[in-house]
């Protein structure tokens, strides 16, 4: 183990916070969408979640050694989604206090101001298996009182479906450039779980359009261990691609 010479940067704290989402998942398909989520899932697999399965984003399963270990065409991905043996990390152009996500469009979906991705797999993902969100720019525009379109199902929508229909629904956490949020409250309203080191509580509250649940003192997101920093800097992201995805530094 080489000693780390510099303190953890914000994107490295985010990587560890995203990796922590996979802790305890076992032998399921980790589907991280985005650069930093991909780095984070591989960090989790390299440390405390060694059994995770991961795709190359085309049609192969790739093991930790970089070897092809299986075939995963899109049809099989859908099968895995509906089987529940998957944990996705998706982005969110908008997210509300119940965890409803929008990646489809901004404005009236019949004539949107900005067409975005569409539904993609968000409805099926969120109702079938664990979901984590990665929002690299925590702002009032992304943390909204009401999303324009519900693509990923939040806790209020899931509750309205009834216990049976919602039994596979779980939003594990929301990681942003400023904080980690979760839904560990009696009514599953979004809670501020931890602030990244150096982030002020007032800053997060100000950049969130709805009231967050929190209790003071708000915990601080854990720092990467020396081993994690070593892996991030020398093995998983030597080119520093993760840093480019994060708004705050």
């Amino acid at each position, binding site marked *: 183990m080489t000693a780390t010479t510099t303190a953890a940067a914000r994107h490295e704290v985010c990587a560890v916070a995203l990796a922590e989402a996979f802790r305890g998942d076992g032998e399921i398909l980790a589907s991280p969408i985005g650069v930093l989520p991909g780095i984070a899932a591989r960090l989790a697999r390299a440390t405390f979640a060694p059994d995770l399965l991961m795709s190359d984003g085309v049609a192969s399963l790739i093991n930790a050694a970089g070897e092809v270990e299986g075939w995963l*065409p899109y049809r099989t991905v859908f099968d895995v989604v509906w089987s529940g043996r998957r944990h996705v990390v998706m982005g969110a152009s908008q997210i509300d206090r119940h965890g409803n996500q929008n990646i489809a469009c901004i404005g009236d979906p019949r004539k949107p101001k900005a067409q975005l991705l569409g539904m993609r797999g968000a409805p099926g993902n969120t109702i079938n298996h664990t979901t984590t969100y990665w929002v690299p720019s925590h702002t009032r525009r992304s943390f909204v009182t009401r999303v324009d379109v519900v693509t990923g199902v939040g806790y209020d929508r899931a509750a309205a479906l009834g216990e049976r229909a919602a039994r596979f629904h779980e939003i594990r956490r929301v990681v942003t450039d400023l904080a980690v949020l979760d839904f560990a409250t009696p009514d599953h309203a979004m809670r501020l779980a931890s602030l990244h080191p150096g982030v002020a509580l007032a800053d997060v509250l100000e950049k969130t359009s709805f009231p967050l649940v929190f209790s003071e003192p708000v915990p601080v997101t854990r720092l990467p261990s020396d081993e994690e920093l070593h892996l991030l800097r020398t093995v998983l992201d030597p080119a520093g691609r993760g840093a480019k995805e994060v708004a705050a530094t």
Partner: protein
Amino acid sequence: MADKRIKVDDVIAELRSGMTIGLGGWGSRRKPMALIRAILRSPLTDLTVVTYGGPDVGLLCAAGTVKKLVTGFVSLDSIPLDPWYRAARQRGELEVREYDEGMLQWGLYAASLRLPFLPTRAGLGADVMTLCPELRTVRSPYGDANGDHEELVAVPAIELDAAICHLNRADSAGNAQFLGPDLYFDDLYLGAAKRRFISVERVVPTAELLAAGSVHTLRIHRGMVDGVVEAPRGAHFTECPPDYGRDEELQARYAAAAADPAAWNAFYQEYVS
């Protein structure tokens, strides 16, 4: 065995304005671009297009050929969003069914099995149910241990008048082969359609098919195909591995030209006309 080899124009002659047409491939991957270009040169219009969309959708939107789109997404892969599809959506002129990706598969599969619907959990609680007002739920006839009957989304069969897919190889009878990493859902488009057309990089003798790939790559057999068009580079500028990768330079030009009428005219003259 019937020789099903036909020309691009023979496919166009079988299509009519107002038809529902399924397009194989995924995003900017193995799209039947030679046949899309032929549709663009034809007077066909008012089409309902069913596909996991890429530049095929964008080009058809640019030409004003699409009345309705049924899709899971429209993306150019290396460029996340297609400018022509965005513009058509933002003008509010397109009737869209933006399904969950898995729902689209299920609709095509239902049609291919001659079932009126297939059930799924995907869509429950999401706005796909309110934005697609024809969608219904169905109650399971089977109770669980507590006697509860689960409510599920009933994805309606998506019946196609015609399907168009691009594969790597076929013989003259229509036995076709994918040599890339993923068939996507090409078999389901062909299964859901009344008239089934494929273009291929190369038509080869039947005996040569297994020289290029294992029997598992022969997922499209001649009972699923009515016409075969030999169209080398027929998926270009989308990717068609292992024959060729995506032409990123041309795709970038396509996307950039959407913002500039003169550049678009030049691109269109070169690529389509």
